[in-house]
């Protein structure tokens, strides 16, 4: 039996990698992909907690996280397509037209 802390360590490493990608990537789509990594790390924690307590609530919460991720991806990608139509680039450094 694998100790539960090992699952938590894997989840922590994945979350940190996702944060690193969020800070490093310049492409809007790849920033969204890094957010997906972070959400999956959180899901792994939820499911590990569910196994620890013998309660299916954690798995249901992981399911809700998936639903929210799908909604977030839909709107994020729609915004990315709009940006690409407007200035034919999704570079986060060039998205500054909200600056006063």
């Amino acid at each position, binding site marked *: 039996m694998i100790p539960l802390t090992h699952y938590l360590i894997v989840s922590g490493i994945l979350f940190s990698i996702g944060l690193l990608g969020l800070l490093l990537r310049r492409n809007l789509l790849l920033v969204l992909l890094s957010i997906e*990594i972070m959400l999956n790390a959180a899901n792994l924690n939820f*499911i590990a907690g569910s*196994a620890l307590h013998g309660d299916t609530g954690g798995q249901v919460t992981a399911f809700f996280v998936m639903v929210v991720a799908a909604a977030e991806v*839909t709107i994020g990608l729609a915004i990315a397509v709009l940006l690409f139509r407007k200035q034919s680039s999704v570079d986060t450094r060039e998205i500054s037209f909200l600056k006063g």
Partner: protein
Amino acid sequence: MEAVLFYCSSALAIVSSLLVIFLPKPTRALLSLIITMTALTVLYLLLGAHFVAIAQIIVYAGAVLVLFLFVIMLQGTAASDLPLWKRFSPVFITSSILAVLLFLSFYGRVIGTFEPGAVKGAAGDVKSIGLTLFSDFLLPFELTSILLLLSVFAAVALAKKEDI
């Protein structure tokens, strides 16, 4: 057997998620994210969450990432990032230090002091998930249906905009 599966698939998940954030071409980064998702599915199966594992493959690898792939391919080569060796900068070093500090604080504050008792193991089949979903989590379930409906409206309203 279980330990071999666990360590192999967690190593695969970590390596492929590192590839996601470092590969310059978006298509390749996306395909390695699919490998990460599949490796995480193995971890979910080891924890006994069968339904969530299958939903992970169908919803994430099947639907969300294919949607990503479509949008990335619409943009062609304009979306490529700089190669890795050209990206070392103060931002890179600061972000790496931040990420390592984040993990160390997780480890020191949460995981290091955490004393898990005996793992009880939860039932992960469709029946028990459904019973929990429709009794204890009924209100969040209805709220997510509203969230999905609103996100469909938002996506259609954004995508049909003519003058931007």
